[in-house]
């Protein structure tokens, strides 16, 4: 459902840009609102969330799907944890549909999906591994590879047909579109701004994104 935000950028307490193909991590406190802005359009943003105080509790795609009986994410969707608790609620969305089945690209899965010689290409899961070894707020929580599970792909369009077909379709996002969510607990956000060049998820041209946080009104 398309809904616009009432928040103003000049009131944001965090305003950062993540370059094309890079990881990003940060903390969003209970009650704060987090926005991901697709600056140039059709950019998949692979995103994981963890309980900031106990990373064993983390975003769960299967809980989010099963508890709402719905495979796509948009305004009103609750992002559930592996313990069945609401982590965030999507409060504004000018794109209209986000994916949580497609997962993150990886060097290894690229060899399967495209060609054995695609292994050297940059990937989201390599970004997550980089964050695990370099980002203080990720390292502080002792997050390892086994905590990298099925993620959300904001701005990505992965339609599932009634007969169970699944495809990676052209993006429905565009320059300036955004998704906004209210944190229902203190969360660590871990993002890979997707560097995939083999399918249309980034319109074959990965671009930067903007991350913003507002305090509770």
């Amino acid at each position: 459902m398309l809904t616009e935000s009432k928040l103003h950028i000049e009131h944001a307490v965090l305003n950062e840009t993540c370059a094309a193909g890079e990881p990003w991590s940060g903390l969003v406190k209970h009650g704060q609102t987090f926005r991901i802005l697709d600056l140039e359009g059709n950019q998949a943003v692979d995103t994981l969330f963890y309980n900031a105080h106990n990373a064993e509790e983390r975003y769960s795609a299967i809980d989010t799907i099963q508890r709402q009986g719905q495979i796509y994410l948009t305004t009103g969707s609750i992002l559930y944890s592996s313990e069945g608790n609401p982590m965030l609620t999507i409060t504004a969305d000018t794109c209209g549909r986000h994916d949580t089945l497609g997962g993150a690209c990886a060097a290894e899965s690229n060899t399967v999906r495209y060609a054995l010689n695609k292994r050297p290409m940059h990937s989201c899961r390599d970004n997550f591994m980089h964050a695990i070894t370099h980002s203080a707020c990720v390292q502080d929580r002792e997050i390892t590879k086994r905590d990298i599970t099925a993620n959300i792909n904001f701005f990505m369009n992965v339609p599932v047909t009634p007969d169970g077909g699944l495809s990676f379709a052209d993006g429905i996002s565009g320059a300036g579109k955004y998704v906004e969510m209210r944190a229902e607990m203190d969360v660590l956000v871990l993002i890979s701004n997707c560097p995939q060049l083999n399918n249309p998820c980034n319109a074959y041209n990965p671009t930067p994104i903007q991350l913003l946080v507002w305090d509770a009104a």
Partner: protein
Amino acid sequence: MTTFNTEKMLWEETVPGGNHWSGLMRRGSALRFTALQGGANVSVLFYNMEEKLERYNMPDTLKAQHTAFLTTGNVCYSDMGRVMCSFTHDSVGWHDTICGISDVAIVQKKYGVANYQTHRNDMYRNAKDGLLTELTKHGLGKRDLVANVNLFSKVSANDDGNLVFQAGNSKAGDVVDLRFDMNVLVVLSTAPHPLDTSKVYQPADVLLTAWHAGTAADNDVCRNACEQNQRGFINTERFYAN
């Protein structure tokens, strides 16, 4: 080569409905799951037994094969781009990959409480606690509980993405055969599917039959289902090359 062969049978064991089980399946062995009553569900996870950080990966499995469900010809991919196991034969046609597992709250809300004190081993069990019990036996835990496969269960999405549980997807006697293409730790629960619409708690018993199937032949139905699977089998064969 990979079809069920009683002469090559290794062992047989029944997992009662609602119960949990784990075991090691070597590369080239296979498991037949037989539903002993209708409406069966097997929530199952796969780990590389020698490096348990490598495990079944739902998104990689779905996107490699452009499908939201599994049946004959499909394989389960690990997060390392290898084929862990293959659906070599299936009388059901649809096994769910996207709905996850029942937990204690879901089971209590739907079916009420039946605990050990009042019901002994007929107590109502849930898939999450069953899988965690088995995972813990192998040094794994909550952080290793990832998106699973629900054998025998079907949930489809309409054009808007709303899910509908298809009651009666499997009947007594239905079978699905999994050939193991890696050395795999199998962890499973036969508790009800989380979206099962049945009003009563009566999870089906499931018979496990193991046999020696051999590794995937050049003309294997799963290897040749798509070019992605051909590459997945090459990755797997390179892993075991010596």
